[in-house]
């Protein structure tokens, strides 16, 4: 390449530098917009899915930025202006979490749907589901109750084939079960 041509190439590169800088800045702006959208989506999934989904669900070793820095919440070593590559990594990581949470949410919904169907069947034909237990938590309801198919009148019901669906009374007492001991003997 002649000296004249070399000079022309350098001038062209010089002239293009601000354009490339502007282009990179625009790309970073676009990535930030994508991150903002994904963050809002993530927040909506977590808020709508609570308490089925833990707010920290999806943060773990599968994370592409896993490591001690990520565990401290500072995957890039504290607050800083992120470069194109770091923003891309952040965007991809967030997109992964959104996808993962959507998948978990979908699984939860399906599990609850199956539990509701099972409960309906247990109501209709209790004799076919002898001693089957279904915690209300699996139906997406709060509390500690459990639906269970039990024989009516104990052994008699078992022998006669009288089965019924019952809901247990709920959460255990904070102080533990009530004492079964009788009153203390008088001295």
């Amino acid at each position, binding site marked *: 390449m002649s000296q004249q041509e070399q000079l022309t190439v350098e001038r062209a590169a010089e002239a293009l530098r601000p354009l490339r800088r502007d282009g990179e800045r625009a790309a970073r702006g676009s990535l930030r917009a994508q991150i903002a959208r994904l963050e809002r989506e993530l927040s909506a999934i977590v808020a709508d899915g609570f308490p089925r989904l833990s*707010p920290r669900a999806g943060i773990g070793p599968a994370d592409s930025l896993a490591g001690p820095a990520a565990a401290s919440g500072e995957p890039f070593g504290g607050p800083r202006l992120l470069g194109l590559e770091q923003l891309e990594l952040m965007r991809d990581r967030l997109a992964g979490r959104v996808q993962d949470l959507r998948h978990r949410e979908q699984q939860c919904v399906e599990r609850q749907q199956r539990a509701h169907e099972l409960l309906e069947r247990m109501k209709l034909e209790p004799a076919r589901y002898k001693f089957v237990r279904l915690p209300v938590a699996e139906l997406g309801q709060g509390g500690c109750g459990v639906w269970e198919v039990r024989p009516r009148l104990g052994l008699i019901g078992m022998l006669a084939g009288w089965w019924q669906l019952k809901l247990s009374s709920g959460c255990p007492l904070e102080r533990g079960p009530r004492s079964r001991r009788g009153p203390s003997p008088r001295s």
Partner: protein
Amino acid sequence: MPGWCAREVEEELPGLRLLSLEVEVARRGSLTGASPGDIQGRLRELSSRYRGATAVGVRREPVPAAYRVFFRHIGLDPDVMRTPIEAAVLERLLRGGFLSGGLLEDVLLIALVDTGVPVWALAADSLEGPLGVRASGEDERLGRSARAPALPAGRLVIADASTPLAILFGGLAPGHEPAASTRRLALFAVQVAGVPDVYVEEALWTGRLALEQP
């Protein structure tokens, strides 16, 4: 008073703004001592505002959501290193209320919970010029004291005319935090894109009014 923002920071993070104001503490007693009855009453009142489901829903409210997005933009994970408002609400749930931690801490907490905007305080007499946001340079330290820790280059900091005095959304420089007997404070708040001006001003004024009352 609006603070300054380094050009490269302003260009990369549009909407980022630092606001500060100086406060003469008129309350009697120490800044780290027990809060007066009106402040404690306000904390109790705010405690009843948050319950379990509300705490998770906070992240969808416009102002806390804006801080979450900003955290992502500066490379912080708000699900691990919580935004100030989410950290405060989580503490309230774990401890059963917004417990008093001393006059200044309580006033800053009230401003935060009321508006969603975090407010910090520095000892005004230790500042040299107005506060602003910039990235730290090579071989800089956090603060001017002998025990100032070294800062890695490129970290976003709150600085005065010469020295970084706080990490953005992080700790204050040793030697520049208000002491129990400090009477002049520089309160500052960080506004990010999506947070209306009125919230930031309200947060600073809440702090000012609470401290300037005799």
